[in-house]
């Protein structure tokens, strides 16, 4: 009901602004017409201020939500107010034929936009660097019934879909969930009740109620029957914490009993939106990127003590080491570079490799041999293959729209998730051949989904794919799909989607960890829920859902356990890395805890079987 009031307030404000329109008054106009020769520009009647606050990434200063309602002809100011990094202001969807659309800024900056809207309907803005920052403007014709969303929406991919379609409704529901933390799925409650107010929406003549998008389902947590080995680190990026103004923690889960060991909150450094993590060979340090900021944070895995926060550049997204020497690579999502740093307690920048103009690399991956960093260039729609020794980068162009995460296997193939597909395909994984530096094919993740009716006729149902790692045995690609809230499992030999498993709103991060007694678990974290999903990679089924909220921790003031993004299971299951750690076993360089984890691994998990293959493949280079 609160939302309803806010929306109606917004409508009232919009209607009431007529008298405030900055035209010279009638009296002035007649007597001073020939004297005043200036013509006023647009006065924005609404504003969306970009912030680092979870959900409120485009915040209406009048009521704090992310939606502004205006009349045709009105203008809205979109500006960056409380952000530590540079962003873009970019149309995600708009009304077909609207004047001065789409809005797009090539490069991240702090530039504002004052945009006039002529055509009634729904307009959604995002940032290309952080593509779940959403803000919406509804241009409502006061003479029609309900809030006008228009009959069609034009998507940034080029697709045009009716607002009555299933995909349009999914986008609308996702918009409200993403921008309203009170609607996030909280597993400390028995049910998830997504309750939207009953506001009439006019979909080009068809009037529906917003509450038709409501969802209600039980929240059931369950521990996997078989424990994992080691621990799982999850960036609960949206947790708000006492003593700091910026959100996020690194949450450490014990895989032996599925309980939370600790949360590293970074109060002293005002840790901001921690997004993704990696470690060194001995698992002493955790390296973590602040995606909405400029820093790489280093902390002690065992004690949680923060050793430093090094400024590395705009919007560092992912960090990964080269297995051979523990040196680090950081993708700078708000720039065009991969930064190379020394490892250890205090990483130092060494060099950087350019990934091409306006590239904005996001979730990069270092190949198992440490030779290449593969970058999905979110802003350029391409993939770069960066030779980490020579510093040379080769580009595979025209991969997809917002390629956001990539993963290379041991056979010179890489899989890249295109957040907005490869037009005309709505949702894709592209397969890249690293040697020939070409795209081999696009796998349609949504082949079994009808975007109009919403009917699914098979397992291929993944919309808006994000993280997409390859299982350590090379058999599967597991992809977190944020719009469909599904986990898709793709067979690497047939390139077919074998399974689609239920995920959570904002399904986002995936990585593999060791299952006790052999095999792997895929751990999946979601932005707008506070559970960690455990997928058994032997059965390709969900083995359990583990709580990421610590309800007893009074220092967590909001969004407890929410914002799941980067996932780092230890021991690192990836080949290339696990062997390096296994080599240190017995050398005295590993803690007793890490030694015990290694002791619990099977031969296959330690990577012995694959190392023969790796030597061969290295020989071919």
């Amino acid at each position, binding site marked *: 009901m609160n939302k309803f009031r806010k929306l109606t307030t917004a409508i009232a404000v919009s209607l009431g602004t007529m008298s405030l329109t900055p035209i010279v008054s009638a009296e002035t106009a007649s007597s001073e017409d020939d004297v005043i*020769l200036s013509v006023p*520009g647009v006065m924005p009647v609404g504003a969306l201020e970009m912030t680092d606050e979870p959900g409120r990434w485009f915040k209406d200063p009048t009521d704090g939500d992310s939606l502004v309602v205006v009349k045709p002809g009105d203008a809205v100011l979109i500006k960056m107010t409380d952000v530590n990094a540079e962003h873009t202001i970019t149309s995600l969807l708009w009304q077909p034929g609207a004047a001065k659309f789409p809005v797009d800024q090539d490069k991240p*900056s702090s530039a504002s936009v004052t945009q006039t809207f002529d055509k009634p309907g729904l307009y959604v803005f995002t940032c290309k660097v952080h593509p779940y920052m959403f803000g919406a403007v509804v241009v409502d014709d006061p003479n029609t019934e309900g809030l006008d969303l228009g009959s069609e929406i034009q998507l940034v991919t080029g697709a045009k879909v009716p607002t009555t379609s299933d995909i349009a409704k999914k986008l609308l529901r996702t918009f409200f969930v993403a921008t309203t933390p009170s609607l996030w799925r909280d597993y400390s409650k028995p049910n998830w009740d997504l309750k939207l107010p009953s506001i009439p929406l006019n979909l080009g003549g068809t009037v529906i109620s917003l509450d038709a998008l409501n969802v209600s389902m039980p929240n059931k947590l369950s521990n996997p029957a078989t424990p994992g080995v080691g621990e799982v680190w999850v960036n609960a990026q949206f947790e708000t914490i006492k003593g700091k103004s910026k959100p996020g923690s690194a949450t450490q889960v014990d895989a032996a009993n599925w309980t939370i060991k600790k949360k590293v909150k970074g109060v002293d450094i005002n840790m901001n939106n921690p997004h993704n993590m990696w470690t060194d060979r001995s698992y002493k340090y955790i390296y973590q990127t602040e995606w909405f900021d400029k820093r790489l944070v280093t902390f002690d895995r065992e004690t949680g003590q923060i050793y430093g926060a090094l400024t590395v550049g705009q919007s560092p997204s992912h960090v990964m080491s080269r297995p051979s020497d523990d040196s680090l690579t950081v993708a700078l999502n708000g720039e065009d570079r991969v930064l190379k740093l020394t490892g250890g307690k205090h990483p130092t920048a060494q060099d950087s490799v350019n990934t091409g103009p306006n590239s904005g690399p996001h979730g990069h991956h270092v190949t198992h041999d440490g030779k290449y960093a593969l970058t999905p260039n979110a802003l350029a729609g391409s993939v770069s293959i960066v030779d980490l020794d020579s510093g040379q980068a080769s580009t595979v162009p025209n991969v997809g729209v917002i390629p956001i995460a990539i993963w290379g296997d041991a056979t010179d193939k890489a899989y890249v998730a295109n957040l907005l597909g490869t037009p005309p395909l709505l949702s894709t994984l592209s397969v890249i051949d690293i040697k020939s530096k070409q795209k081999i094919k696009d796998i349609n993740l949504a082949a079994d989904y009808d975007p109009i009716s919403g009917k699914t006729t098979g397992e291929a149902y993944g919309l808006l794919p994000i993280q997409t790692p390859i299982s350590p045995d090379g058999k599967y690609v597991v992809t977190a799909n944020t719009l469909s809230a599904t986990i898709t499992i793709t067979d690497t030999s047939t390139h077919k989607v074998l399974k689609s498993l239920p995920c959570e709103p904002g399904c986002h991060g995936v990585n593999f960890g060791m299952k006790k007694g052999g095999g792997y678990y895929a751990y999946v974290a979601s932005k707008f829920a506070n559970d960690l999903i455990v997928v058994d990679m032997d059965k390709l089924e969900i083995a359990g859902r583990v709580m990421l909220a610590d309800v007893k921790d009074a220092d967590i003031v909001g969004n407890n356990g929410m914002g799941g993004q980067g996932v780092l299971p230890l021991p690192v299951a990836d080949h290339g890395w696990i062997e390096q750690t296994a080599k240190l076993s017995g050398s005295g360089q590993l803690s007793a805890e890490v030694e015990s984890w290694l002791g619990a691994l099977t031969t296959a998990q330690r990577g012995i079987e694959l190392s023969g293959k790796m030597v061969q493949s290295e020989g071919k280079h």
Partner: protein
Amino acid sequence: MSLSCILRRTSSFLSSPLLLAIFFIPIAQAEYVPAKTDSVSGSTHRITLRAAPLPSGQFGYQMVSHKIQTAGGQTEDVTARYSDKPTIPGPAIVMTEGDVAEITLENGIPNTDQPVSLHVHGVHFDIRSDGTMKMLNGVADEAAFPGKPYTYKWTAAPGTAGTWPYHDHTFGNPMLGAEDKGLFGTLIVNPRSGKVPALINGKIEDVNVGDIKREFVLWMHETTFWGMEVNNILKGKQVPLWTNPTVGARLGEKVRFHVIGLGTAFHTFHLHGHRWLNPGTTHVVDTVNIGPISRDTFVVQAGEGVGTGDWHFHCHVIQHMQAGMMGDFKVVK
């Protein structure tokens, strides 16, 4: 001698009457006494401003009342010059060297306990009119709280002629204030001589301030110009021009531009077809650097040597141009 020993000795010295005699008394004697010229007789401006929200949720200053009492004792109410709503930029306050202003600020921002203030640049004021909080100025919270206005006193002393910004320094954050949300405005101090140098017909000459027909105030904030015209033909009538406007003048009219920066970005202001004097120099320019709160003020003769037309003005930083940071100087017959 150990360090702690030195510290002990120093602290005992610091509290000694000798030290008071040596340091504090001479300092008190050397206290700055404002020069008499500060109070040269001019007009007194009695102004009430209000900080209030705009429909967009931005904030603006609004003129509530402006009365000018001349040295001769006559009072003129000039409130009608201004918009009766809050604007971005806020009201342009025009003074002359020798004038003083008493400005009472009201906090008209609903649903807040945050103080709002007025911090001015360029003119003279004592520490109680700094418009900052006690944590910064060490004296007082110099801001308007809801229901508790605050009065500032500015002196446009000789040597303060120029165009200056005023802005909030307290709302939401005592270090920053809410200038970024629209709480900023312009103070124009005209020289007592009544003349400003300008490039007219290719030559440097002194222009009578009274001959300036229009004042175009252009604030450069991030990628937007926020404009205000002060029309001297209509006795200082102020016309809010909002974002990226068209400013207009007749061919040959002397008009004055006041370009001021705000925020974090650095700009290069360029006006097509016109040249002007870099203030204080004989250097002729058509583009000037504008950083946050730095400004340039210059007089041009509209269309001089180039005639009528829609003369473009814009920030010359490519990214800002791409974002639409531009407008027109429309010169008509």
